[in-house]
């Protein structure tokens, strides 16, 4: 499972998941079952890292440095994670992306984001018969046109859409929201 949390650190994700019975992200990582792309850490390495650390592979978050607005490096990371060296490709992998809306605020374009998802779908869904799960933010009266473009396009291409929101009638103590 390649997991790309852009907004939380590894350790926070571990803590959050530890409350779920039988799920341990740490164990999964050690088994090689879970591959993490920690966006925040990657970004810091890119911006504050020493020159020597920039070996071979470009940073997955290359686009932040402005050299390219496309997400090719990010896709390359996903692709190499799916085919670990020296072993067969994963069977039925699941790519989790949390969350796509963040990328728009970091200097990329809606087209680049959609291209990235398209490439992921080809690699994960078509070639490897896996699944892609993507999180985006949206709301009815959003003025973020770029984000809405991404959301609408994803809706058209998705097999399943889970829309989670608070109640239209406002805050309620017993029921927090609807799916």
């Amino acid at each position, binding site marked *: 499972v390649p997991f790309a949390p852009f907004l939380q650190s590894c350790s926070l994700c571990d803590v959050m998941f530890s409350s779920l019975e039988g799920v341990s992200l740490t164990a999964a990582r050690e088994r090689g079952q879970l591959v993490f792309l920690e966006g925040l850490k990657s970004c810091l390495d890119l911006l504050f890292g020493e020159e020597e650390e920039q070996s071979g592979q470009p940073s997955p978050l290359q686009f932040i440095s402005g050299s390219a607005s496309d997400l090719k490096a990010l896709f390359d990371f996903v692709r190499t994670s799916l085919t670990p060296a020296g072993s067969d490709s994963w069977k039925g992998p699941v790519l989790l992306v949390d969350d796509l809306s963040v990328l728009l605020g970091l200097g990329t374009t809606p087209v680049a984001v959609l291209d990235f998802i398209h490439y992921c779908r080809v690699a994960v869904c078509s070639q490897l018969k896996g699944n892609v799960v993507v999180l985006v933010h949206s709301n009815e009266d959003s*003025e973020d046109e770029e984000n809405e473009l991404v959301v609408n396009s994803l809706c058209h291409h998705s097999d399943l859409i889970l829309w989670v929101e608070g109640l239209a009638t406002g805050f309620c103590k017993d029921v927090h929201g609807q799916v």
Partner: protein
Amino acid sequence: LVFTEEDKYGLYSNLLFKYFLAEGVVCGHDLFVASAKEHPDKILKELPAPLLDDTYRNELGEEATAVKSEDFQDSMKIAWRYQNLPKMEASPTTSTKFGHYYDVSKTMSPELFQSIKRHCFYLPEELTMQPKMKACNMNSAYARLLQSIQRIIYQEGFDGSDPQKKQKNILRIGIQSLGSMLWGDDICSSDTPEDIHSLTKFLYVLRGLLRKSLSACIVTVPAHLIQNKAIMERVTNLSDMVVGLESFIGSERETNPLYKDYHGLVHVHQIPRLNSLICDVSDTKDLAFRLKRKLFTIE
């Protein structure tokens, strides 16, 4: 990362900013204060004085009795169900172990500062050298600020990089009026800014720095000046806590009898979800604030 939307004249958000820093002093945290308009030393000279155990009960006793006598016993007609709900606790009735209270009519005495390490970033005085940070198309003032924060976190060992350091401490970072023109950003002055991503990139990198170190940060932004609302939506997703202050000064609400006891409203746009799957949602959603002679309260 606490993101605060400033009220129109910045009066109350400034106060909140100082409260955050004052709490840091009282707790013995290190401070990092950044501003493009006011010298951080000046900000630090104006922090409110803490109310110490014995004196605060008296001070608050006065305030509390004044409030009670103003309580209006009118029965509610439409919202009758709310009549029986208890009023949200505004003042400390038992000694609280979490947080401190302050007297805004007095400034903090310099003795309390002596042992506090403070780092200042005053944009006009920062050298105009090329930031070491890799070029990332970010506004150079933001880049310099990030570099300064990163340097302090690393040098002072807040990121655990110095295993020798036995005493772990917290770094409290306060950044004033980010996004304003004084920082070289035009998102507050134009609806088609030159670089719409500067602020969000800044926040993303800042978030990364906060996550990898023992630090907390408050950022105030003159959100009412930002014309591109998409930026505010993105900023909310990038922050842990988002609070907006709306003052009644000069607005029609000033004369609304409903708000006669208050100076403004507090809008909580987002609550933090750290180390948990859901957040602790309080029952009360409609909050207002008032600034009395000695206390700033939110009810």
